[in-house]
């Protein structure tokens, strides 16, 4: 087992990014190597991971700013491990997918790597100070990806994305201060250690209801915006529509997951200690995100925008499963994070490939592409099927688990979701699929060629993973199951919290 695995995993892409800037022409190769190394490390970690332990693993901790109680502490548990795995996988495949990027390639790939650094940092850091730093660092590469390689309204989208999410993180930061200044270690010193602080919130004397609710709301806001959940989702469509394909993929597959991660890592353990009203609020937000997002997707004319809204809808399942707070639902929500991370990649890659092979993403202008791009059509179809929750693919497992788990505690909301989202989701996927791929090929597309090999390769890899985890979810749900127990340790169910 590698020592300092996590630090290494974060450091390698960072160095890789610098090298990429230097390596003018060979940047993509550097990038590939620099993203493969973390993948191997994370696989190593996965194999070495003790699936039954609720403790942090691979922990590294060094003093950083003693006078503020800031430590460099990293480690993974059942909550972080799957996402680390996801991040490394996605990063590699995205690099492969963008193999054909020649416009300032060195900067492009460097930014991809920087993004990986930030995301991995968020998923592994156990110190709020460190956590926040990575949380913010992630914005920068994405800002440049959108702003530099983006579409016509890239400036607007990039700035909106940056400012909107930055406000959210700052409010989160204030909430973190609330925790930090209220709690003192037994020896009187202060700490930014996440686990300690979160645990401390159960102290009713130290954290009177008014205070803890305020703090909780702040943190929640920070995470919900990243998720993104209704009504804080409006930065997402703009960012996605303008971003380059690789950017959208990373955005949807990894950045959104940061919000979910925050929910599991911070929000859920605090949930028992805060006002019960929050559960209702979050549940409503979740349901709205799912249903409203699905309807929005149905209304879109732009394929990519449709996919973007579909992520809003799917991430709603994460929120729902999380707040339902049963062992099964939490597990499902975690798995939804993982599976959506894989599926959405295929979706955005499809939209991207269509964009730069055909030249438009407007669904109405497309038609009969399957005729000219059969391989691609199969992959896209597979991706869409996965996204509409076809069994045998990871999406179904996740959503079924969430629903089955949530019904126990939030029957009403679950019913709404089942009734209004499942069919609608199928509707917009199939409708766009039929319009874009099937039917007679439009004359203007007669000379369209099939997608590039590297695009096909990376999409195929994703599909295979989706099927793998759809058929054998236990590979990852075992870990999540333990994590779910660990999250629920303070209190077992909402009923015991007096919510229902």
């Amino acid at each position: 087992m590698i020592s300092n695995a996590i630090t290494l995993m974060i450091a390698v892409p960072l160095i890789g990014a610098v090298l990429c800037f230097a390596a003018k022409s060979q940047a993509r190769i550097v990038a590939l190597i620099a993203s493969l190394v973390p993948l191997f490390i994370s696989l190593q970690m996965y194999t070495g991971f003790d699936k039954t332990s609720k403790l942090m693993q691979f922990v590294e901790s060094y003093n950083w700013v003693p006078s503020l109680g800031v430590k460099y502490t990293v480690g993974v548990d059942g909550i972080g491990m799957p996402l680390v795995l996801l991040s490394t996988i996605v990063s590699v495949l995205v690099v492969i997918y963008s193999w054909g990027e020649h416009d300032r390639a060195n900067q492009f790939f460097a930014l991809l790597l920087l993004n990986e650094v930030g995301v991995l940092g968020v998923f592994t850091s156990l110190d709020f100070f460190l956590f926040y730093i990575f949380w913010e660092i992630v914005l920068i590469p994405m800002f440049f990806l959108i702003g530099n390689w983006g579409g016509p309204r890239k400036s607007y989208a990039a700035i909106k994305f940056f400012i909107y999410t930055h406000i959210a993180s700052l409010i989160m930061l204030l909430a973190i201060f609330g925790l930090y200044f209220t709690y003192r270690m037994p020896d009187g010193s202060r700490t930014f250690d996440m686990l300690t602080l979160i645990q401390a919130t159960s102290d009713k004397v130290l954290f009177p209801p008014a205070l803890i609710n305020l703090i909780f709301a702040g943190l929640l806001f920070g995470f919900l915006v990243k998720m993104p959940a209704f009504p804080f989702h409006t930065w997402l469509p703009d960012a996605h529509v303008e971003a380059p394909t690789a950017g959208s993929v990373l955005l949807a597959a990894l950045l959104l997951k940061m919000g979910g991660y925050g929910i599991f890592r911070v929000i859920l353990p605090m949930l028992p200690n805060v006002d019960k009203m929050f559960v209702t609020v979050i549940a409503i937000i979740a349901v709205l995100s799912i249903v409203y997002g699905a309807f929005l997707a149905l209304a879109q004319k732009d394929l990519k925008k449709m996919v973007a809204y579909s992520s809003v809808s799917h991430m709603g399942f994460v929120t729902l499963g999380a707040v339902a707070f049963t062992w099964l639902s939490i597990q499902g929500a975690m798995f939804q994070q993982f599976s959506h991370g894989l599926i959405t990649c295929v979706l955005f890659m499809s939209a991207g490939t269509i964009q730069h092979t055909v030249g438009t993403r407007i669904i109405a202008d497309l038609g009969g592409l399957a005729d000219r791009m059969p391989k691609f059509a199969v992959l896209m179809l597979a991706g869409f099927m996965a996204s509409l929750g076809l069994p045998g693919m990871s999406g179904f497992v996740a959503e079924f688990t969430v629903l089955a788990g949530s019904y126990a505690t939030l029957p009403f909301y679950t019913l709404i979701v089942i009734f209004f989202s499942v069919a609608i989701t199928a509707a917009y996927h199939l409708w766009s699929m039929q319009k874009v791929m099937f039917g007679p090929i439009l004359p203007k597309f007669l000379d369209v060629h099939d997608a590039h090999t590297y695009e096909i390769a990376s999409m195929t890899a994703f599909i295979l993973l989706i099927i793998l985890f759809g058929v054998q979810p236990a590979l990852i749900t075992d870990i999540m199951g333990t994590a779910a127990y660990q999250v629920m340790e303070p209190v077992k169910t909402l009923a015991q919290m007096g919510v229902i």
Partner: protein
Amino acid sequence: MVDLAHYAPLYAEGLLTALAMLILFAGLFMKSKSMMGYVSLVGLALSLFLVLTAKTGSIFFFDTVSVDPLSQFFKATFIVVSLLVVIASLSRYKESAGGDEFYALLLLATVGMMVVSSSIDLITLFVGFELASLSTYALAAFDKSRRNLEAAMKYFIFGSASSALMLFGFSLLYGMTGTTRISEIATTLTANLGPASLIALIFVIAGFAFKMALVPFHMWAPDTYEGAPSLVSALLAAGSKKMGFAAAFRVIFVAMVALRVEWYLAFAILAAITMTLGNIVAIWQNNVRRIFAYSSVAQAGYIAIAFVVVGAAGTLPNSAYVAQTGIAGGLLLILGHALMKTGAFIATAVVAYMVLREGKTDPDDISSYAGLSKRAPITAFCLLIFMFALAGIPPTAGYIGKFVLFGSAINAGLVWLAVLAIINSAISLYYYLRIIMYMYLRPATGPKIVEPKGYVAALVLTTIGVIWIGVNPQPFIDYAMQAAAVLLPH
């Protein structure tokens, strides 16, 4: 016969003063002015060393001058700023006539600031204040272009008016307390609180606020920063602005501790207005130096939170700790902002150099920054870092400063102020990002240039500093905490 060793802690000031005189004198005969630059460079470096190694905790000159962590912290900041400016000006004032005056004035201004930062008597404080002001008035007009002169004129009128206000305030204070020693004022003022005390307080605040550029005492700043030579703007924004804080910290916190509630209110209002107004007006600017000017107004607003925190801390159980973190946060942001703004203005100097070589006018217009990442990569990258730092993106000096400061605000229960502050830093993102957009996302409008070495050196040093504070804040935080402790009642 005075024992020189006894004055060891003040060698830095002495050295710089002497150097200034020497340069002026030498300027009469020597033709090569760049020589002067290197001399003052060495002198500053040396004095920086002296400051950092000076033995603190001693008082001089009939206890009017104190050498303590606080003063050393400020002195170090000022010297660093001047150092960077000098390095940059090595490429600017190479052979131009009057280079020697430039360096001399620069050094004198530095000395003035240093005196202010360590004076514990209103008289020395005022003298130092004026020394710095007068030298910077002259510097602002240095290139004698129309813009320079207008800037200098406004700066001068405004400045002398406000220092007159301050003096009037001092006189009232003296009248009420019968002393000019800050510590004594503190003890006496608690005794008799007259209605005049409020007037005095506000006048004093007005005087300092002019240097700190708090709204509505900021109005000279945008014009002057825009009009004055870039390097001087750097000195003003980064150096003399901080001198205002140095003076205000001592006078407000120590001398006027009895008027805590009053200045708590005053600064709460000032801070709120300042940060908001600075930011929303900056959004409208197209002149980059004016953007920086307003941004530094906004930053002054953030730093002013330190006063509010200390004011609010008075009643809290752990008031000492809260106040200390508050001041420390202020100090860290002062240090950080000094670096960032110096860098930013030096960068504008590079752009000006670049544009003027092409014979174009109006070098500071944001359109000149289009595609800077290709025309002057190093400058662009450094400016990028400064922008993110000013916006408070980790891991940079700007972030650490805001982190501690806003944290202390929360700690003092000033949630409304903290929220306002973060909303403001979100707004400020807009114009910082706008500059970045121009530098990195717009096509270049001209060929790649060779960036002057002096500028590059200064920029790179500054960048390293900004990042270093962000990555390894520990020593700086400790230093700031010690410095803050000086101001707290023992």
